[in-house]
């Protein structure tokens, strides 16, 4: 234990031990208790105590880093926000919908496309038990024969101007639920109406307006090809099937009985978000187990593909600009730290004379540079996030940013400081105390 220098790597050498004790055998430099050595906290305290003493210079030093980090954080934030925005619009419109239709096939001789298969009449019951299906409705468009019209009055007035009839659809009773529509007045027909083929009709809001029907308590009728149907309700909404707004909707049973509807044209299925591909695969099997290829299911494309493609091509340019700004910021820190080393050469000499090692001097400037970079990164991150929020507010979007991005921005600033401080710290560590203390 006698004569140990701290940090000595040669204590086993007898000569060295002799060199480190004086003639009386007392150590020239007694060992220092661990707690009293130059610790990391000391280092950080020494390195940071002068950072704020020149605010103007600090601002100029960190400006490049701030801009670089801000543009990186903002670019990534914009991409995330835009992707989330697109995804939310996409989800709202179509991501919850699967439509099954009969597949089209070329019929050989006449070169016409005909339906290759047909949807069974009990399609809704067959698919509602599938996982991910919320509700399903069978829809069919009824083509009226030439000369038949839909009117609100029983007499066909030959002198009246020809008015296009509203379209006629058949539907199963779940339509409102599936198409997310609402009732303006009255009610929708139910399974009983359907199975009894009751002559009841529900009008789309625009069709009702055109035919001058706005209330159902007086039991108005519409005449479809001369057959009277009691209007029991008026519906609106149904953004998923806007064509129904201008249509007369009757139960499937009535359409088959009165108009000889041969097959439903499509099955509209409302699903939970994300179940699209799976429901599409299963629905055709549930509907036509013996010939699933005869049906065609259209499912929403996966929203993740979409947002990824948006994210990847949004603003590669901005990312590059951010990296360039960051490099410039790093050079700025390097320059100012180097200048600071030159200015404080007297201080370096003094610290060396007071017993600081080269390593401690280098570490001091290194930590100073890292802290400056970190401050720049922190401010840059905050500005970047703020920019994303500001743009989102102006556009009426929901700002979306991964909180890790902001944190990563600050850390990246520290990394830039570390890279920039390396050379100045090396220069500081190499300062010769003799030269540094001369004059000064």
């Amino acid at each position, binding site marked *: 234990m006698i004569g140990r220098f701290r940090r000595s*790597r040669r204590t086993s050498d007898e000569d060295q031990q002799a060199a480190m004790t004086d003639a009386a055998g007392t150590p020239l430099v007694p060992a220092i208790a661990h707690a009293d050595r130059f610790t990391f906290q000391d280092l950080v305290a020494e390195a940071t105590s002068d950072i704020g003493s020149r605010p103007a210079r600090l601002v100029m030093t960190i400006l490049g880093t701030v801009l670089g980090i801000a543009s990186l954080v903002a670019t990534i934030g914009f991409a995330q926000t835009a992707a989330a925005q697109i995804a939310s619009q996409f989800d709202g419109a179509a991501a919850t919908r699967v439509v099954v239709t009969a597949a089209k096939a070329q019929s050989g001789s006449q070169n016409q496309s005909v339906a290759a298969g047909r949807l069974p009449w009990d399609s809704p019951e067959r698919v509602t038990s599938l996982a991910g299906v919320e509700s399903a409705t069978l829809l069919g468009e009824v083509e009226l024969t030439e000369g038949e019209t839909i009117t609100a009055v029983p007499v066909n007035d030959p002198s009246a101007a020809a008015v296009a009839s509203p379209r006629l659809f058949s539907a199963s009773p779940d339509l409102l639920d599936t198409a997310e529509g609402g009732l303006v007045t009255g009610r929708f027909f139910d399974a009983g109406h359907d199975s009894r083929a009751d002559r009841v009709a529900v009008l789309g809001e625009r069709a009702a307006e055109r035919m001058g029907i706005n209330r159902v308590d007086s039991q108005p009728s519409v005449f479809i090809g001369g057959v009277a149907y009691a209007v029991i309700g008026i519906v609106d909404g149904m953004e998923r099937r806007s064509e129904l707004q201008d249509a007369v909707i009757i139960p499937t049973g009535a359409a088959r009985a009165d108009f000889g509807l041969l097959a439903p044209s499509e099955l509209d299925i409302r699903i939970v978000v994300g179940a699209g591909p799976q429901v599409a695969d299963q629905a055709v099997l549930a509907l036509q187990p013996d010939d699933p290829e005869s049906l065609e299911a259209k499912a929403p494309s996966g929203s993740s593909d979409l947002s990824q493609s948006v994210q990847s091509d949004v603003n590669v340019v901005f990312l590059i600009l951010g990296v360039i700004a960051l490099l410039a910021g790093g050079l700025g820190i390097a320059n100012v730290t180097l200048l600071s080393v030159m200015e404080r050469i007297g201080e370096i000499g003094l610290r060396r004379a007071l017993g600081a090692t080269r390593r401690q001097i280098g570490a001091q400037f290194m930590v100073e540079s890292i802290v400056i970079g970190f401050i720049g990164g922190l401010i840059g991150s905050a500005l970047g996030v703020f920019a994303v929020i500001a743009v989102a507010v102006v556009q009426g979007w929901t700002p979306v940013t991964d909180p890790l991005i902001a944190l990563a921005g600050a850390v990246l600033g520290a990394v830039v400081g570390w890279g920039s401080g390396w050379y100045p710290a090396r220069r500081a560590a190499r300062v010769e105390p003799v030269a540094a203390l001369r004059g000064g």
Partner: protein
Amino acid sequence: MTDAQTSILPAASETDADVPLVELRDVTRSFPGPPEVQALKGATLTVAPGDYISIVGPSGSGKSTMLNILGLLDRPSVGEYRLSGSLTGDLSDDERAAVRARFIGFVFQSFHLLPRRTVLDNVLLPMLYSGVPRREREERAREALTRVGLGHRIDFFPNSLSGGERQRVAVARAVVSGPRLLLADEPTGNLDQRTSGEVMSLFEELNEDGLTLIVITHDDGVARRARRCIRISDGRLSEL
């Protein structure tokens, strides 16, 4: 391991009077040219513990080189330097830093105080590197400042002090870690007559307490106050 360094200045009795504190033997320091300059030529000097020595000489005579070698800031090109009987030639850079921190105090002509630190912080600075127990540091800094007559100035910044006060802060900083040897390089070079006197009186008090002093100066008045006076001329020493 932590028993040493409990008083600001070690008592003279702690050291063996027979062993010189400083022993230079045929020390030459040459700076590679061109032209090659020999700042010291075969300098031999022995300083006993508790001694007070002045080194005088015109500028360019090798005074500063001498002080740098004595303070382990520079290495002799030829010759050996023993500090308290130990050879210093084989010490690594870090070991020399440790010896400087614990064993040697420096006072400079231009004070070298950190301008953006208070007087107290300036005096605390060397104890970061010398490993004085943490809980003692502030008390020792206050004691040292009181001792140099600046107990009322601890929260001031150096720029608001007079030259004499600044140098007294520097002296407090030099002795706060309890060195055995105090090296002063033109300590009165930037001071007027009266404040020079104050600083020199302080040095004498410290010497009376047992601190070994080596003062470099070109002021004969300052030099004469030391017990021994060495003249250096063209790199050669001669005792006056």
